[in-house]
């Protein structure tokens, strides 16, 4: 019974990812991407990694929500923007992701009532994650910081290309 929860969440993850890849409209694709990330978070939770599940939601789903807000901010200008949003929000577009998300919520509630690790039997709490990261894996944390620095500097320089061009105009 509990394993069926895993398979349902996995199915939701795969289906929403396929939908995210095939949508022509970026907003609709983003909605499916969020559902996909939520499904992965539920999978983590069922496996006994509540901390990873929380991070998945905070970092990935959260970041995409921010992206979402930015898109709406940039596009929503005046009457035409309102009309466009009306067009986007036809029931055809939100019912399916809504049902998927509701299914995931239901699973989460069911899982919460039972032991923390439903499919693996071992639960890893945040303290254990922290102890491992800053114990044997301390160098991985340090190398990641360098990786982030490389990403940041690279993104800054590549983004400059467009800023400089706009200023020239």
């Amino acid at each position, binding site marked *: 019974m509990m394993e069926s929860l895993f398979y349902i969440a996995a199915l939701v993850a795969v289906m929403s990812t396929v939908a995210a890849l095939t949508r022509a409209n970026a907003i609709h694709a983003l909605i499916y991407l969020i559902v996909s990330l939520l499904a992965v978070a539920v999978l983590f939770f069922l496996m006994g990694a509540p901390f990873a599940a929380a991070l998945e939601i905070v970092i990935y789903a959260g970041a995409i929500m921010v992206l979402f807000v930015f898109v709406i901010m940039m596009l929503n200008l005046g009457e035409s923007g309102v009309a466009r949003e009306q067009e986007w929000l036809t029931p055809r577009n939100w019912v399916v992701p809504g049902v998927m998300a509701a299914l995931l919520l239901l699973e989460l509630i069911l899982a919460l009532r039972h032991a923390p690790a439903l499919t693996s039997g071992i639960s890893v709490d945040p303290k254990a994650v922290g102890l491992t990261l800053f114990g044997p*894996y301390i*160098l991985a944390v340090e*190398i*990641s910081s*360098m990786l982030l620095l490389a990403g940041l*500097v*690279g993104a800054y*320089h*590549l983004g*400059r290309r467009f800023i400089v061009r706009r200023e020239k105009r």
Partner: protein
Amino acid sequence: MSPADFTALLPLLVLAGTATVLMLQVAFLRSVNVTAGLAALGLAVAALSCITAASQAPLQVTPLLQVDHLALLFCAVFCLAGAVTVLLSLDYIQCHGDEPEEYFLLLVLSTMGACILASASHLASLLLGLELLSVALYALIAYPNKSILPLEAASKYLVLSGAASATILFGFALLYAASGTLSFSELGLRLATLDGADPILLVGSAMVFAGLAFKLSAVPFHLWTPDVYSGAPAPITGFLASVGKAAVLLVMLRLFLEADLLRYRILIELTGLMAIFSMLAGNLLALLQSNIKRMLAYSSIAHIGYLLIIFMVSLDLGSRTLAIEAAAFYLVAYTVTTIAAFGLLTVISANQAERENVELHHVNGLFWHSPLLAGLFLVSLLSLAGIPLTAGFIGKFYIFNAAVSGHNWILLGALIVGSAIGIYYYLRVVYHLSRRPEKHHTQPKAAGGWLTRGLACALILGILLLGMLPQPLMSYLQSIL
């Protein structure tokens, strides 16, 4: 972590320190010369600190890194290659990018990624090192923001390399699911107790291998190579082709030996097949190119083919040490030669509007108006072709020797055929170098001050020294393996 651990990590600490100092310096004072000087100094000190670190080797520092003599040797080689790239890029980047300072910071970070790969003994450090190397390279390839070619090259590399990293990661997940460990040596122990025919383990290691083969640009994962090489700035192409590939090959060798993936005979036979295809396809396609950078890209595919031979040779326990020795020597020789060849291309193509493109006719008659540069370029081409008295010859001879000792006759045949084709297209460039310059044709004026020329001379001296006096490096390699 004990003091010994810190000593062993000294090269990495120096690199991380250099990156931090550069970041702060760029934030407060923008000056290309200061940044480049600091970067070159930091890289040189990191290379020197490998000698200090060697007193502690071999040492396992946390589960992630295994600092042994081979890792430190390549750390030093990568840092020196990074320092040379910094100095070679100085002139290029001043003309072709606004805000050129971050370029050097990214180069230091990329070198650090390569050093981490050289000493990785854990799947996590493998992935982090690989990503550090490639993420910095994406930005470096796209750095000159006045022309469109580098941007195209960088986006191709970003998308394809990202897909390869995802494949590697998926492979790691499968390996972990079946074995329950991420450390190379423990993986080897677990695999020995597990069922050898477990499809999950086999698929997992095949995915890791495919991803790494993509980074090495072995046929059939080579399609990105010519476009990226021809679009990227020439010094970065040299760095990518030498350090980027040597680091990946080194970590792949370590993974296959320590995790004992050699037990999967079918996987190793696949590397042999890939080696044959890379040698033949790389050399044959190089024949068709009129752009020198694209030609060198295909020739680098062929060189990876030569190197992949050693995996088949390693199957034979008696020749395993010889195979590793051959690979290490070949990698050192190949790194020096590639950096030299691309460095000279940077100098030769200095005054062109589209500096990323170097066609064969651009070098027409170079012997007649700048004999020094042409002579140096000639030596690096001969070393790539594997002509005696150069480093490339000894490297190829080593691989040849290993293949003979492992009785891999088919691979040996492909190596000989490939090298024979190779000589033709390398010498075609030499033919163009020595042609009488046409009167109406404007000559490419070679740029670069005494620094670039001195550096080029030093590199060529290195190639010749490795070719004529290979014994010190050979005996050092024998003593550490």
